[in-house]
């Protein structure tokens, strides 16, 4: 898939709370194919001190209307600037970047935490197109930190785990009653300790598992070599060789606390 640099227009902005917002972005022409798990590098406009783009995973894709949606967590200066953008503003993106999820498996579990929920919506839809209806387990510290909930309902069996019990079962996703059921494929994206715990479980049980990593990066296209993960085959660029990796490639990383 050829990568592009394109100016998108913000057609819809939804603010959930101080931490999370979504931007629905209109492509000026025909949107290319975008695989679940791929990401974009977003230019941060108007802030001359912030020179680097921000890597953001693709939350949703609407090929009929040529739009993509990003779910963004405010974590620093760049995402804070992006949170001040308005409908009608232009946003420049380099995309689609990285390798997506394989869409393999029959009895499939998705595990998302925090902003890591983002790529799982497009993933759920892509799995549905293959006739797969996954169990979708979403976790967070508290209810308000799981920004997207009902949007998942058409695409699988949705369940929640919160540390304070404000939504779904109380505890971590790995303690949820649906977590240890019989699956043949797990896809996970979220905080590193969560993904490591999920991947360890999968490796122990012999379940195929794909993790989507989120290292700090500059270029997003495999040139700067800044975003490497210590894989079992040496340093690999998360942007180009990931962001999705099979857990079997990352046993060093998974077992390194």
């Amino acid at each position: 898939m050829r990568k592009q640099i394109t100016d998108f227009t913000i057609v819809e902005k939804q603010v959930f709370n101080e931490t999370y917002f979504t931007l629905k972005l209109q492509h000026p022409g025909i949107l290319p194919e975008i695989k679940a798990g791929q990401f974009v590098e977003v230019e941060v406009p108007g802030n001359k001190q912030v020179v680097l783009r921000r890597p953001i995973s693709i939350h949703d894709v609407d090929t009929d209307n040529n739009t993509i949606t990003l779910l963004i967590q405010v974590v620093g200066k760049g995402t804070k600037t992006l949170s001040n953008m308005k409908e009608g503003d232009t946003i420049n993106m380099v995309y689609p970047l990285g390798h997506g999820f394989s869409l393999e498996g029959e009895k499939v579990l998705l595990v998302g935490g925090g902003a890591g929920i983002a790529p799982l919506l497009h993933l759920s839809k892509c799995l549905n197109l293959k006739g797969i209806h996954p169990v979708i387990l979403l976790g967070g510290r508290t209810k308000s930190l799981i920004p997207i909930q009902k949007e998942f309902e058409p695409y699988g069996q949705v369940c929640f785990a919160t540390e304070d019990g404000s939504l779904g079962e109380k505890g971590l996703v790995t303690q949820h009653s649906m977590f240890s059921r019989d699956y043949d494929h797990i896809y996970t994206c979220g905080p590193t300790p969560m993904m490591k715990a999920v991947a360890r479980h999968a490796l122990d049980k012999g379940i195929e598992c794909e993790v989507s990593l989120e290292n700090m990066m500059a270029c997003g296209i495999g040139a700067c070599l800044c975003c490497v993960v210590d894989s079992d085959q040496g340093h690999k660029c998360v942007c180009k060789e990931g962001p999705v990796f099979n857990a079997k490639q990352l046993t060093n990383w998974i077992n390194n606390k």
Partner: protein
Amino acid sequence: MLQTKIHNLILKNPVMTASGTFGYGEEFADFIDLNRLGGIIVKGTTGERRQGNPYPRMAETPSGMLNAVGLQNVGVETFCNEVYHRIKDLDTNIIVNVSGSSIEEYCKTASMIDALDRIPAIELNISCPNVKKGGMGFGTNPDMAAQVVSEVRKVYHKTLIVKLTPNVTSVVDIAKAVENAGADSVSLINTLLGMAIDVEKQRPYLSTITGGLSGPAVKPVAVRMVWQVAHAVKIPVIGLGGITCAADALEFLMAGAKAVQVGTANFIDPAVTMKIIDGLEEYCRRHGISDINEIIGII
């Protein structure tokens, strides 16, 4: 209009890409016509494959970034046997940045690259700040710099560019030393040694604590050093450091650089080099300049 010359190399235009910011060029083929570039300086290449430093390797800083990649690369043998064959037919000057930790390693790599028909030049990196023996030891001492250049000169027969570090008291002394030792050109500046601390986590952002600063933040330092060196040596100077647009490139040319390299800006806009070339053409037309060399070194 934009053609320029570095020793024996004819450049279509003065715009090259800086080592370590452009991979082997392939990563940018979706975005630009690589054949339009004046040259591509490919990833720093060492005698053996290197894993580089642990993550995290970068931090954004005001108008710039710190990196501590640490010369991760496939090694000279894999470069010659695999990478070279993928990129050798590009219609531009493909220049290999040669890095190392010892004179023997520099010489080994340089002599292997010497045998590759389609590589007309090397850029000897005596200025990497990110590995313990990254060559900066050679690049900060005029005698050591001269020694490594004269040894490489014995085994390398094409255009020899030497990349200088700004982390010295007098960059002019180093430039003169490598000129006298047989360098055909110097490129500067490599990154400025820097550091940033995450105060919430109370630890440095980089796994190596210190790293190399690049991006627009370093440009005035780079222009000053290029101007100083261009007035002190006879060999052509290649300028780099924070170039993001044609006006930035023109500053370096006017300060005395015969060509420029674009680095960190490639991360921000993968098509930036094309915009810079277009911008230089537009500038020449607007100012009635028929040959870009007319403005090189006018300051």
